[in-house]
């Protein structure tokens, strides 16, 4: 009996809770370590980036005003869904030539990491908010508040783990984001969009684009409706480009290039705070 012909998946993007192709209709080939074709991925255009920013902006208000408890539950749900579908991610990582043991490590760490950040949503303002003892007759307090729309530029290595490690702290703080996935292996990241879709994450809170950074990074870093950039590309020329473009509208930029994506060092609330503003409220005290 002949082997069954496998049904291959068309990889698209994840924008506004939908899975559109690039408006440009362009794709590029994703290959495994030996140069063998695995799939075609969308080669997103500048217009795709701009559309994703519009979507992320419209999702921001709703997401940031959800209760911290609810955001935590939604993040926890992501981890649950990821756990349930982990075989798919193991397979996709292995397709790219990653050994089974390493793929397992990557997926498991990614799941645990989402849970870690899920737990911070309703603690961050308790730990990092303050009541300020001003000298005048005023009640004064400060608490962290989401920065807005964050552009995330993920690295090539550990495509799934690095992407999730960057998305989780950003959305835990109430931001919406656009992720430019690993160029060489965006496939598990695109599939992660399906997990997000099934996890009560409101449409547009996380948007995933694939393609060439040389085409998309310029647009996302110079876009005036993006408030912050979270980049994990260590190349200094690229860093400079990102920083220069960030100055167009005073974006906060965080260049984050850890030696070890598996390290527990990544699990800290300061990463959430990087994408939060401090808001201070005053009110007179008196009869």
């Amino acid at each position, binding site marked *: 009996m002949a082997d069954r012909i496998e049904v291959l998946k068309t990889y698209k993007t994840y924008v506004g809770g939908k899975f559109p192709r690039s408006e440009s209709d362009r794709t590029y080939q994703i290959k495994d370590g030996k140069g063998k074709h695995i799939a075609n991925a969308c080669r997103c255009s500048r217009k795709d980036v701009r559309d994703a920013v519009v979507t992320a902006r419209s999702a921001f208000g709703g997401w940031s005003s959800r209760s911290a408890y609810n955001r935590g539950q939604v993040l926890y749900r992501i981890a649950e869904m990821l756990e349930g579908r982990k075989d798919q991610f193991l397979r996709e990582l292995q397709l790219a030539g990653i050994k089974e043991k390493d793929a397992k490590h990557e997926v498991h760490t990614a799941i645990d990491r989402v849970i870690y950040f899920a737990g911070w949503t309703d603690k961050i303002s308790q730990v990092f908010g*303050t009541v300020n003892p001003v000298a005048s007759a005023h009640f004064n307090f400060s608490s962290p508040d989401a920065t807005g729309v964050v552009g995330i530029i993920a690295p090539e290595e550990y495509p799934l783990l690095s992407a999730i490690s960057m998305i989780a702290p950003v959305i835990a703080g109430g931001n919406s984001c656009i992720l430019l996935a690993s160029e060489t292996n965006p496939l598990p990241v695109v599939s992660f969009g399906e997990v997000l879709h099934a996890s009560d994450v409101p449409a547009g809170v996380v948007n995933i684009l694939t393609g060439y950074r040389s085409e998309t990074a310029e647009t996302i870093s110079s876009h005036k409706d993006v408030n912050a950039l979270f980049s994990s590309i260590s190349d200094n020329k690229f860093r400079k480009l990102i920083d220069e473009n960030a100055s167009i509208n005073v974006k906060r930029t965080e260049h984050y290039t850890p030696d070890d994506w598996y390290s527990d060092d990544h699990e800290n609330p300061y990463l959430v705070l990087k994408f939060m503003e401090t808001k201070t409220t005053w009110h007179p005290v008196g009869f």
Partner: protein
Amino acid sequence: MSDSNTKESLEKISNGSPKPTSPNADLKLDFASFWEYSPAPESSEHVKIDDRYNHFINGEFVEPVKGRYMKSVNPATEEIICEFAEGTSEDVDKAVKAARKAYEKTWSKLTGKERGKYIFRIARMIQERARELAIIESIDGGKPIRESRDVDVPLAAAHFFYYAGWADKLNYAFPGRKPKSLGVCGQIIPWNFPLLMLAWKIAPALATGNTVVLKPAESTPVTALKFAEICRDAGLPAGVVNIVTGAGATGSEIVNHPDVNKIAFTGSTKVGKIIQKSIAGTGKKLTLELGGKGPNIVFEDAPIDQAVEGIVNAIFFNQGHVCCAGSRLLVQEGVAEKLVQKLKDRMETLIVGDPLDKNTDIGAINSKAQFERIQSYLEIGVNEGAEMYQCSSKIPENGYFCKPTLFTNVSQSNRIVQEEIFGPVLTIQTFRTPEEAIEKANNTPYGLASGVWTDKGSKIFKTGQSIRSGVMWSNTYNKFDPTSPFGGYKESGIGREGGLHGLYPYLTF
């Protein structure tokens, strides 16, 4: 008269319940016909300003390498106060080297406790010389003596007091982290609160163990140089604080010096963007406190008389030279007419004039350049079709003075609504629903500060949560305190100054 008062004090609001107002709520303010104000000038005889000031580098006042000097002008009289050094790359390099040496040899070796004691000394010496500093601030910058005496200088001292206490407690400030200092900080400050901005910059930098090269603004350098004397008199180790004077070109030398680890800038959004761009890819840490276009929202249920005082304080404090000024008034339709009338009446009572006079409410515009900039915005406003109102108060013939100004009939897209004027100029828009107010409030590239006036607590919180700005003044405006973090969202800046949050920009973890 008493009849109408009783009637007014039982004025009904929309839900039908009587609204308490003051018995004189609807009387027009008219101080001038009750009494006359005699001149009440602050004596400045005991204040000594030298003819010429040099840089303060490595604990000494040193002449600029290129020997060039600039002039500082009293904006209220247009007279030259003194000359000060124009810093060049050579001077900045000397200052950075001194700061680096001080960082490595002395300051980073001191315990937090000892560092703190130096900072406490500075705080005390500012208090001791408070009146002198206040007078100089008013002469050099044009702000009313009442403000420099009661706000600028006491707050500057308070800032040093507050951060002095942090120096040996940093390990308690950041859960799970051990903070380390950065090294040499380059700091560039504006002319609107010269000594206070210096304090906002230097106090946290020293408390966290960094050394400093600071450049004051070219129109207000004198109190920074007086502060240098205080550093010297306090016995602060040489090179820990260096003051280099000059204009934008000098600031740019500091920003681009390769041995500076951190840049802190307060000033315009335009210059902030240039700084952010010029340090791109260098890994220098950056904090920016930039411009604003603060919305000040008055709901129908607000205590109107208090709100009027708040509006005046929000936009006319320090001649409106305040990045967080409440320069856009948003009034709910039902009270708009009444409120604007009360505001106009209140503006009539404002005294514009000699900054050193203790009765003065509004002093001189800081410089000729700023005066011209404000005038051009007044023209733009009129040309855009807005209605301009200025109070009838007299202004001095000499010096740069601008009457308190209102613009009504403005729309959201007008330049005078979108752009920071940095003068005593208020735009007034109306709104019907809270949602409309919030939408208008958020509709500029800025997000520094905002105000909300209402008697209803839940409305304060909902409005506060929805407005994207770093400071939210509810039923008050333009209040500052060293324990209270200050800084903007969006294009109003990056990072916070003041409070525990003000330590972050000067540390690495």
